[in-house]
């Protein structure tokens, strides 16, 4: 066990910070390396819901998603300015990875290249949710063309899971502005998704 006591490994937070920076400046390799983090988080949450299913417990999701950041970049050690900055990058990252995940899942469900799993025919919920997620992503692109800030608010709130205050800080606007933007953007998106324009 002697080797384990030697030099401490670089904290994962600094590694992730580096990768996030690399990715935000266009390094697609970094995305591949970041994916396991978000996947793990997703699996972890899924596990939780599986375990909690029986007693139909609910999670305080806002608090939970917050933890993603804590673990991703160790926000406790990052100052507020930087934290706001990283929240932005993280939200974008999560959007990208989650949408990719949903997309790949849809693809697989339609008879993709994965080994046939005999007993897993009934996975319908995630299929529906996956499509919904893809639709939000698409609609959000349109919203961005119309009103970039509102699109950013949705990215931070929905994909990033941020609180109103954190969203405000990440965008450098007031809390009231975020609340108003969020309200209108949601209405807009819901209308868009219900496709009764």
């Amino acid at each position, binding site marked *: *066990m002697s*080797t*384990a006591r*030697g*030099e*401490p*490994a670089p*904290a*994962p937070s600094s*590694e992730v910070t580096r990768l996030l920076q690399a990715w935000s400046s266009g390094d697609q390799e970094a995305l591949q*390396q970041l994916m*396991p983090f*978000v996947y*793990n988080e*997703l*699996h*972890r949450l*899924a*596990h*939780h*819901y*599986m*375990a*909690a299913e029986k007693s139909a*417990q609910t*999670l305080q*999701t806002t608090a*939970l998603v*917050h*933890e*993603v950041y804590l673990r991703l970049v160790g926000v*406790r050690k990052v100052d507020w300015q930087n934290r706001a900055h990283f929240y932005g990058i993280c939200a974008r990252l*999560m*959007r990208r990875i*989650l949408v990719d995940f949903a997309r790949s899942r849809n693809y697989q469900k339609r008879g993709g290249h*994965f080994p*046939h*799993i*005999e*007993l*897993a025919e009934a*996975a*319908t*919920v*995630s299929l529906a*949710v*996956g499509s*919904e997620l893809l639709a939000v992503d698409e609609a959000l692109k349109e919203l961005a063309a*119309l009103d970039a800030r509102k699109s950013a608010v*949705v990215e931070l*709130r*929905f*994909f990033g*899971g941020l609180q109103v205050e954190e969203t405000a800080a990440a965008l450098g606007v007031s809390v009231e502005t975020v609340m108003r933007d969020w309200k*209108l953007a*949601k*209405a807009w998106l*819901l209308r868009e998704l*219900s496709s*009764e324009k």
Partner: protein
Amino acid sequence: MNAERWQIIETLYHSASELSGDQRNSFLRRACGDDHKLFQEVESLLSHGSTPQTFLDTPAITVLAKAIAADEHQSSAPLLEGKTISHYRVLHAIGQGGMGVLYEAEDLKLRRHVALKLLPQFLARDPQARARFVREAQAASALNHPNICTVYEVGEGRGLHFIAIELLEGETLKERIARGPINVSDILRTAIEICDALEAAHATGIIHRDIKPSNIILTKRGTAKLLDFGIAKRVGTEVLEETKSLSELMPTHLDIRLTTPGTAIGTVAYMSPEQASGGQIDARSDLFSLGAVLYEMTTRKSPFPGNKIADVLEAIQDRQPPPIEKLTPKTPSRLVRVIDRALQKDCSLRYQSATEMKADLQVLGRRLEAARTTRKTLMGLALVAVGFSIVFFVSLRLVRFRQFVFGEPSHGVTRAIKSLAVLPLENLTGDSSQEYFVDGMTDALITNLTKVSSLRVISRTSAMHYKGTRKPLREIAGELNVAAVVEGAVFRSGDRVRISAQLVDPTNDRNLWARNYDEREVRDVLQLQNELASAVAQEVAGRLTPDEESRFSSKTRQVNPEAYEAYLKGEYFLDKWTVDGFAKAKDYFAQSINLDPSYADAYTGLAEYYAIVAFMDVVPPREAWLKAEGLLAKALKMDTNSSRAHTLLGMIKLQFRCDPAAAEKELNLALNLNPGDMHALDLHSYYLLELGRRDEAITEKRSVLQHDPLRVITNAELGLYFLNSGRIDEAILQLQKTLELDPNYAAAHMRLGFAYEKKEQHRQAITEMQKAISLDRKPDRLAQLGEIYARLGKRQEALEMVRELQQMSMQRYVSPTNIALVYSRLGQNEAAIAWLQKAKPSDDPRISDTGFDALRLDPRFKTLEARLKPDQSCPY
């Protein structure tokens, strides 16, 4: 849509959304006018915006996770029952493991029931998750241990990945904790078993990394089984390689379980600080987690509570858990210490191995076992005479074994010990009224150990500071500057007594030696104390000198249990140092003598009572001295080997008989009998000081202090010795140190004041003296400050002191000399002479004091001098 129009829509939307129903409609119609498209646009947004809770209000990751979970539930369980995977027939689901669903299944080949763990399908697609799943199986199957759940097979069938493991019937520790309090012996059993499992895992280089109550199963027989090596990690050469991979850096085991909505507890609660901060992890991380589990088993509370995971993680890294004895007051303090040690944030301060932690738990287990058997015996079960049988603890053997294996010299560990502290023995009787008995045992152990010349044993005053302490031994040893610590426990019921004791190396909390003395009768307690001390002495000192041997082997007699009891109570009350306590002590000693007129110690105790009251003027001193002297003569006739009796007699010779030669003889006898008798040495140093052999006196006083470093009085006295020897700087340092121990010790402030005055630092001198007076307004202190004021020309202040002294003299005794001295210093000779004339020889007239120099030419002073000059003979 252009930006301008969007802006209009936005403004209208927000304005309208603040209105309701009709108002909103008419507002919009008015605002939009003919622009129907605009009206429609805003209205449709408003209608979609009115949905209170949409899926957009839940973070995307949660939405997705919930969907995945729902899929798993829909698909797997019902479909699998009755199906065969590889050679296992699935019977029914039995739970959710950390990494998959668990089924009970029948092994069709071996015809036995097993637990089958299936990797969820969404994870099966993830190569990393698959790898982890296999790793769990590999890690656990490498371990064949009764407290680790056995892994039979890892395999694949019907496109499903599974692990077949031992089917365990029972409940998880998590369920057990939730069910109700767990008794200490069950806690210990589980703790020892899990330590054992970890010992095995760590020995093969596997760290579990996810020790938590839900990963421990208690079988119906009560055996603990450790589960889920899902995130176990191999350490060794692979470590560096592994840490480079990001998946390894990710704390994957953070599967959060919420028991009640809004309360986030879960496995984060059991993470070690290095896990919480993503640092390098080794075996000691598992020990921290086990500490957290033990904390919860003991208190049924999390050591690091918090509503948010961030708070929990922060608590793990930065906060101390709420003290166990506040939550569960009856917890044995040794268990508290084990848990505290396991929960040290700094892993170098923790147990360094599961083996070490297990050894401590085992010692504790045996102690409790000892207490329990005694209780049983007393409940009327067959009493087995155990005589002198001695039980060696396994830990002792372990130490020996380790020495053997690692080539340490077999006498190397304990041989270097030159100093030790006996911590107050623990009262396992569960009856606080037995405190005096247990303290008496501690006392006797200390006294007996001081017979070893080469050993510095901390005196009882300093040792008693640590009664019921939670301080780590390392810290205690540091404060007392000792190389080893003796800890132990006493159980007593009626006329039976049991003792267990350990000698501990405080640098690593390792037991160097441990022994359990089975039931004895109280009448044999002196023999027991002697045996225990002699065993410890042999352990630390190796070969005893012939003198020491004889000190230990000197025949101890049986005592009458009731007389012994009364004697211990006498000691206990004497130690309280209150007028009421003295009276009680006297009664108990007398009672003891009545019960057993041949019990020497009782006479000595009573003699000490008289000596103390003589000093304190509680009774007329002369009679008290005489009584003490008579009692000691009797005591020494019965037991000439009592160093305490000789010491007391020495004091009487010095103080009462004013016979330094006789005093020295007695003190030397005492020190020969017991070189570590600090009372004797202390008195001897005083004797040297009286003779003017100041440096020698200081050397001895220093030695006394080393044995009793926390005793405030001794510290302050050393300050006084320095002061009287003109070593002012040392006096100042020593007195400052004393005041660190007790900032409110008036005498030390006073002496420090004198020291500053000698250095002409008047301001500091006055401050210190004022402080001393504010703590305790003794007349001589007022006078001494008054003299300084007078010398410095502060007449008003000096007169103020005189006024107060005069006032005080109406209520209590104030020596007229005190007032005379201040007047003399002020140059008010008439007043000074007048007050001095009131003095009697017994008023401590200090006629040769330099303060009276101004009066010496006055013929009246000559007369006074003749009348008041100190009696050549003894004052008594």
